[in-house]
């Protein structure tokens, strides 16, 4: 189940339907404890639905999912996030009017200063804030946005906003990162930077799961490719094997 003692994410027979449309049908997956997994498939294949279920934003109609031995199936999003499962959204969600740094600071977990009495009385908050500031800057530096720390998040380019979303996941201490289209619509130069970041995260022993339509990007970084269609997992394996299958080439690589 684990190859280095860390709990792995796995789902057993997850199903979800919307008004009779089966968005997920009996999805059974076991993710490695570290590495890069790409989920591909046509629009409506259930990729984002799977992400939404795994992060608690949607509740599965059937099936269960676990982190190690711990069942997560009915946990709300904030509890799943606190277990180290962080996510980004396809339609970028950031607080666009406030500085980049504030977004990353928001992501820091277990802040004493977020509780009422410490916020009012300010004991220990300044010190904690300084520590979080340092940590936030570290992740901004990691994604190459440290110089933009004081600009409004909404002023960043699309690719930079995706990097900021990634920095937020890292500042939230996500060990498992579920990224919804991290490079779609991003300038090619920026894509290679994002992919570099993903490789570094793999080296840090994290698991990166990403949904992507950009097959070239998938080929470059993924250790494993999961192909979904009509709510089912129809293939999975190493990219050079899976992406060579004639039916998959036909459908997704063209």
């Amino acid at each position, binding site marked *: 189940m684990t190859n280095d003692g860390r709990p792995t994410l796995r789902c057993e027979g997850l199903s979800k339907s919307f008004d009779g449309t089966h968005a997920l049908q009996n999805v059974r997956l076991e993710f490695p404890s570290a590495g890069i997994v790409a989920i591909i498939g046509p629009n409506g294949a259930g990729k984002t639905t799977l992400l939404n279920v795994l992060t608690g934003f949607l509740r599965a109609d059937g099936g269960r999912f676990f982190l190690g031995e711990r069942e997560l199936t009915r946990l709300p999003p904030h509890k799943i996030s606190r277990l180290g499962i962080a996510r980004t*959204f396809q339609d970028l969600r950031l607080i666009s009017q406030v500085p980049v740094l504030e977004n990353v600071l928001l992501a820091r977990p277990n802040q004493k200063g977020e509780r009422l009495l410490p916020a009012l009385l300010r004991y220990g*908050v300044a010190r904690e804030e300084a520590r979080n500031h340092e940590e936030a800057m570290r992740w901004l530096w990691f994604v190459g946005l440290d110089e933009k720390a004081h600009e409004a998040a909404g002023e960043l380019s699309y690719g930079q906003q995706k990097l900021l979303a990634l920095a937020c996941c890292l500042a939230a201490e996500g060990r498992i990162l579920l990224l919804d289209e991290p490079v779609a619509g991003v300038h090619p130069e920026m894509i290679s930077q994002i992919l570099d970041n993903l490789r570094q995260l793999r080296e840090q022993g994290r698991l990166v799961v990403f949904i992507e339509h950009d097959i070239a990007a998938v080929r470059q970084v993924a250790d494993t490719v999961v192909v979904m269609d009509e709510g089912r997992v129809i293939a999975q394996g190493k990219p050079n094997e899976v992406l060579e299958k004639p039916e998959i080439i036909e459908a997704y690589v063209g």
Partner: protein
Amino acid sequence: MDYAAHILILTAIYVSLAISLDLLAGRMGILSIAHAGFYGLGAYTAALLVIRCGAPFMIGVVAGMGVAALISLVVSLPSLRLHDDYFVIATFGFQMILFSIFTNWMDLTNGPMGIPGIPQPVILGWRVDTHLEFLMLAAIFATASCLVVWRITTSPLGRVLHAIREDEVFAKSLGKNTLRFKVTVFAVSAALAAMAGSLYAHYITYIDPTSFTVMESILVISMVIIGGAGSLWGPLVGAVVLVTLPEALRFVGLPSSVAANLRQIIYGSLLVVMMMFRPRGLVGNCGFSK
């Protein structure tokens, strides 16, 4: 002189009400129509404790705040799980319930006849019995409310409130238990409204349910909107404008029957005009809606 002090005392009370509503509506993006109800809870709790139990003034104030905060959980725990729009309706219902309790629980509140003879405050031997002294007390209370709101909004907690207003899903994805934050802030807002209410009761020395109607909630909402939601100065300016405006109308020399109706029309028009031309309010910076 007493007249000017009276206007300033009322302004200070409304500053507390407006700033505490803004903490909820402007900073976190969740509107409540029950603010007058919590204001009333503070007034009744303080008045009854002081009159029936002989409690000191400050005990009445603190108890009023505690009661309002506790009662706020009755609304917030079930209904803050709902979408924000439904929450507004739930608070409207709750406002009606509180008003009917003030009106109908004769044994406790004396119903429509109200509670007369609420004594003037005594704080550690300081008997607050002149207008000027009361103004000092009201200013201290208003400053305390502003300080609480300012402290919250400039802390990491304020950062989370801002995130909830702008994008609750994002906040949840970063591990924030947004329901807990909403419930907490709703309770703080209710407690501050109750604090203003207890001060009001001791100032006017007589309370009855008509001071705590839904119209009062709407007046406070208007202050926040007209002054500018989501800022420290906005609710202050809104309170000053809406307390002094009717007084100004009095000096125009209109008969009081006309002035009363005219006032409602002016409030209404002001709201419509503000929404059309300056939705951020007079001095606000972010506006009321998401």
